[in-house]
């Protein structure tokens, strides 16, 4: 049996996708292993980490059912605030996370949204400052203490940026499926 020929562009694309997937899986691993300070290292200093609110709107307004920039969100953080969230957990007296929750991050349906750019010019994905627009799905399971269980499910739009040869997260938009949040609080990173 002969395999279909792999063009150099296609090969470069597969290579890039594998790097992106490895990166997102590694990020999930850091969070699930509670290596929060190491996780912060994966974020650019100008990151916007944003979790808008979902609403129930009439059909003609369906495109507005995610709160826009400038509206209230669940989370609307910069790097400073994210670092403070980590610092708060590390005090050991952040009662909402003490003892720590157990979390598993499942990241799936990973796709590179602006792949055409990199298919046309594979090398550009490795230039400093290159932006990779990723869409994926997440399922984050949290269990804490005895029976407290939350399933947070939704879409994520991540912008990864090439910094010194490495991938870093420059933007994250977390689009959860719930309108009324069924979790009593959001103390874990998604």
């Amino acid at each position, binding site marked *: 049996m002969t395999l279909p020929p792999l063009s150099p562009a296609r090969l470069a694309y597969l290579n890039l996708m594998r790097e992106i997937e490895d990166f997102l899986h590694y990020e999930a691993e850091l969070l699930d292993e509670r290596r929060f300070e190491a996780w912060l290292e994966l974020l650019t200093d100008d990151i916007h980490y944003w979790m808008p609110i979902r609403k129930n709107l009439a059909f003609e307004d369906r495109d507005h059912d995610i709160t826009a920039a400038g509206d209230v969100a669940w989370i609307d953080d910069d790097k400073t605030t994210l670092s*403070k*969230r980590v610092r708060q957990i590390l005090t050991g007296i952040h009662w909402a996370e003490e003892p720590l929750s157990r979390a598993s991050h499942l990241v799936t349906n990973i796709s590179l949204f602006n792949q055409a750019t990199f298919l046309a010019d594979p090398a550009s994905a490795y230039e400093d400052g290159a932006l990779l627009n990723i869409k994926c799905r997440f399922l984050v399971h949290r269990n804490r203490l005895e029976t407290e269980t939350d399933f947070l499910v939704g879409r994520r739009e991540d912008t990864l940026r090439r910094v010194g040869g490495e991938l870093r997260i420059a933007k994250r938009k977390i689009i959860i499926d719930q309108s009324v949040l069924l979790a009593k609080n959001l*103390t874990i990173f998604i």
Partner: protein
Amino acid sequence: MQSFKCSAQDLVDFHGGEISRELFVNADIYREEQERVFARAWLYVGHATQVRNPGDFIVSKMGEESVILARDRAGEIHVFLNTCRHRGMKVCRYDEGNTKTFMCPYHGWSYGLDGKLIGVPDYQEAYKPAFDREEWRLVEVAQMAIFRGTIWATWDKSAPSFEEYLGEARFALDHALCPWDGGDGETEVLGSTQRWIIPSNWKIVAENFAGDALHVVSHRSVDLAGIGPSEGEGRRDDPGRLVVAAYPGGHGVMYGVRDATTVPNDYRGSRITAEYFRHCWKKRRARRGPTADIVPLVGTIFPNMSFHGQQPRTILVAHPLGVDRTEMWRIYFTDRGAPAEVKDFLRRYYVRYAGPAGMTEQDDMENWNYATAASRGVIARQYPYHYKAGLGAAKTSDLIPGIITDHPITTEQNPRVLYQRWAEYMDAGSWDHLLGKQSVIR
């Protein structure tokens, strides 16, 4: 109170500072308080800036029940029970929008923005004799009031006016809801509502915001992390000297009394916000004189509307869902006239402070969750909660209305007054009775 074979007063020892755990875990008491408290009291429904234009509506809640807040063609605001008069379908299942009519999905009855039943399929053919559509309007609240942009309603015709209901707590609500400059300008809701569900009784939320200075210790971790609007530790700028005040209607407020002689040095994390605040505060002092620097930090208007009046500025309504389930609705607001950059800076501060992801509120919800869980058992519920801090310390002040305590500031006076009032609601058969009763809270 009928459900518990005793007077509610037997569960609330106001003078001894002990409150029975049954209030937080007993399902019969919960059912009865839906009638005795939520069907009679004035409840917060929404904000006028959420329904600015004719046809605008939002869906809100009053107690367990869904309501529609709408502005009709003539500009009048209405609050309707969100249930079809035909067979009960939830008439409006959108959170917000703009419409000409509310059309029921089930059998197609439609209602105007004023609640009038304006369309019934087959009206001519099917109903002989014709029924009077005027009698089958959407159910509308008995009374509605607007106070500094906030919209309130009650199902009880015999309830006193909203101003009377507030009593001297009007001072707190006015200071909490006015723009920073203390004038008559508008404040506006910053956008959408955060809604989330917590596994606790609604009263634990109400008492916390009524003024629980003792629980500050639970927020040590956020203070160490430092999320305030200026640099460094803490979660707020210096609020000044703390004073708690309770009101016979069951309302409770914690004020910060600022030093009136110093120029404010708040919001150092944003130059333009700091300048805007200083500018407003100067006007406020000119306008309000000696009361300008008395700032409500947190408060609860009985039964379930709570607010932060300064840092952050938000309204939180703890809607009951069950004896140990509460739906939290939080909105944030700012001066309508504030520069966009100020609104942006404040919005980010507010949501890192409060709401389910708020670094302060997260810890509250953990405590409320497991206080409820650990109080449920047949043994646990035999032991009353302890609210004895500051017993006998209450007094009055020339400047701040209400029964006040400023030392010790960790007094539990306000929760005591809240539960005393709750017991009066549970025992009283009528508003006449309730109004006659509200006095003895010292």
